[in-house]
């Protein structure tokens, strides 16, 4: 059985100018695999992640024919039941640790809280777990980091803390929403490989949302290409170069390559028809 099964997911926002559709009917399944979702900003990829966690708030609206976690329909859960899903079964790492960590709580408090929200355990045990988890994300001096405030740690370390915090309740699925876009290029890969190792060790499903086709193809098994709220193409990461859709080709060709230098990078072509037709 697949971990996550999404059919015809739609996210729309009621605004004064009318209804804006951010996601227009996408379907996909996720197994114990690493699934990449790639698209430019505004393509609806982040909304997809948040819709799965039911974190879209009014005036946003989420509709789907089916949105099942290990066979259980998420849309029929009460808010209280949904809280047991968030963190415990599906977790999410967001873009910039500078904003996604609470600036006035220590790192330790925030990690222990994530654990204690789902486990009936003592603070002492939570503390031990948190230290273990910080070690697992390759933080050398976890005792010191536990007592630090988010503004006292670097971006790369912040994001590793975020990963530790999101993995501590042992979820089945991790959604990583542009987890490295705010980081220095030099630490991006390190953070990603730490996340990758943990996800594979635990046999989790990963949804890796990014605009960076290169990174995604390197760290994922399968890639969905989104454009204007729709999935325009799905393919194996390893066979991305065989992609047929003009938009995917455009994305691929707009990347500079060392082995095939070009005088000019291609400008991404956009065709409104892609948003209308089905993938």
């Amino acid at each position, binding site marked *: 059985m697949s971990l996550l099964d999404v059919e015809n997911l739609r996210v729309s926002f009621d605004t004064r100018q009318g209804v804006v559709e951010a996601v227009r009917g996408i379907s996909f399944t996720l197994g114990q695999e690493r699934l990449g979702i790639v698209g430019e900003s505004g393509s609806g990829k982040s909304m997809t992640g*948040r819709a799965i*966690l039911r*974190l879209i708030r009014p005036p946003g609206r989420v509709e789907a024919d089916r949105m099942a976690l290990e066979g259980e329909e998420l849309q029929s859960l009460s808010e209280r039941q949904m*809280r*047991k*899903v*968030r*963190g*415990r079964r599906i*977790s*999410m790492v*967001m*873009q*910039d640790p500078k*904003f*996604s*960590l*609470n*600036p*006035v*709580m220590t790192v330790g408090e925030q990690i222990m*809280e*994530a654990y204690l*929200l*789902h486990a009936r355990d003592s603070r002492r045990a939570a503390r031990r777990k948190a230290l273990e988890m910080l070690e697992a994300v390759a933080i050398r001096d976890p005792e010191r980091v536990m*007592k*630090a*405030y988010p*503004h*006292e740690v670097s971006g790369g370390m912040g994001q590793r803390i*975020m990963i530790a*915090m*999101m993995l501590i*309740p042992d979820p089945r699925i991790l959604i990583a929403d542009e987890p490295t876009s705010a980081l220095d290029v030099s630490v991006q890969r390190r953070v990603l490989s730490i996340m990758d190792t943990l996800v594979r060790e635990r046999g989790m499903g990963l949804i890796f949302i990014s605009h960076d086709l290169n990174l995604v193809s390197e760290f994922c098994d399968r890639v969905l290409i989104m454009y204007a709220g729709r999935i325009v193409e799905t393919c194996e990461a390893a066979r991305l170069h065989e992609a047929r859709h003009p938009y995917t080709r455009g994305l691929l060709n707009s990347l500079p390559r060392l082995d095939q230098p070009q005088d000019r990078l291609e400008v991404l072509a956009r065709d409104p028809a892609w948003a209308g037709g089905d993938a």
Partner: protein
Amino acid sequence: MPRTATTGGRLPAPLAGFLGRALATAGSLAVTVLGLLFVTFIIGRVMPIDPVLAVVGERGSPEVYAAAREALGLDEPLPVQFWYYLREVAQGDFGTSLLTARPVVDDIARVFPATLELATLGVLIGVLFGVPLGVLAAINRGRWIDQVARLVALVGYSMPIFWLGLIGLLVFYGILGWVGGPGRLDVFYDGLVPSVTGMILVDSALAGDWMVFGNALSHIILPASLLGYFSLAYISRMTRSFMLEALSAEYITTARVKGMSEWRVVWVHAFRNIRVQLLTVIVLSYANLLEGSVLTEIIFSWPGIGFYITNALLAADMNAVLGGTVVVGTIFIILNMLSDLLYKVFDPRAR
């Protein structure tokens, strides 16, 4: 405050930052108070009443008049006179009140606790109701409770405080008889407890005299509630807007992703972030109440500093007016700067 890494004999960084900022604030405080003194000095000079006449009387001979003028330092150039004025103020000398024939400083020391008591209780009421109302409005943005909170605040901003005081007296004292009338105590209870702090609620509690305490409470509750309402209007609006900002932050999404209850998201994660901002707002509204209690004190014959200044004003007792203005102004300025300083020292974004 974050844990501080003390290295060697040096001051921990936040403390050093605090001292630096405190110094800068003290400097700007001094300049501002000097400005206030200059303004009151000018007001005292343009006053159409001749201070010399007040001393020598209408029938003094020109020689006596000139001597008195010299004695008062009025023949000196203005900057020198300002210097004399500063020297006097620095020694706590605001002259003698015409109305009470006592030094203005003593008068102020006597009436100030009444104002302090009233404003403190007022701001407490404002915080107690204003903060929850603001938070509720923010988490129910656009719904009926938000509209109610908005209306409550708008009415507060639009209501003439002295009028509301009159209506309050009419309804709760005149018609319902629920509260004590004007003044701080019924005459019967006057002077029963020794004055320690000058605040009757505190003094009577210290003396363990709960009859006096109850009577004082029945007198203060109406004016304090009124002042509380006005600070509530301001505090609830500010709380709402801080809260909205905090709730839209990404770390709130993080908290929700963790699977936290909405209650915990709001009161632990969002509220912790606005505490410092709120504190500065509360200090500011406290300053505003100290000043804004003038009209309330008149309505309720509350013998505080506003009542004192106004009465002095109507009697053209300029020493008392200016002395009171300087004292209220200085406290107001200090609280103002304190709120600024609090923000800079404790807000993580300013650190």
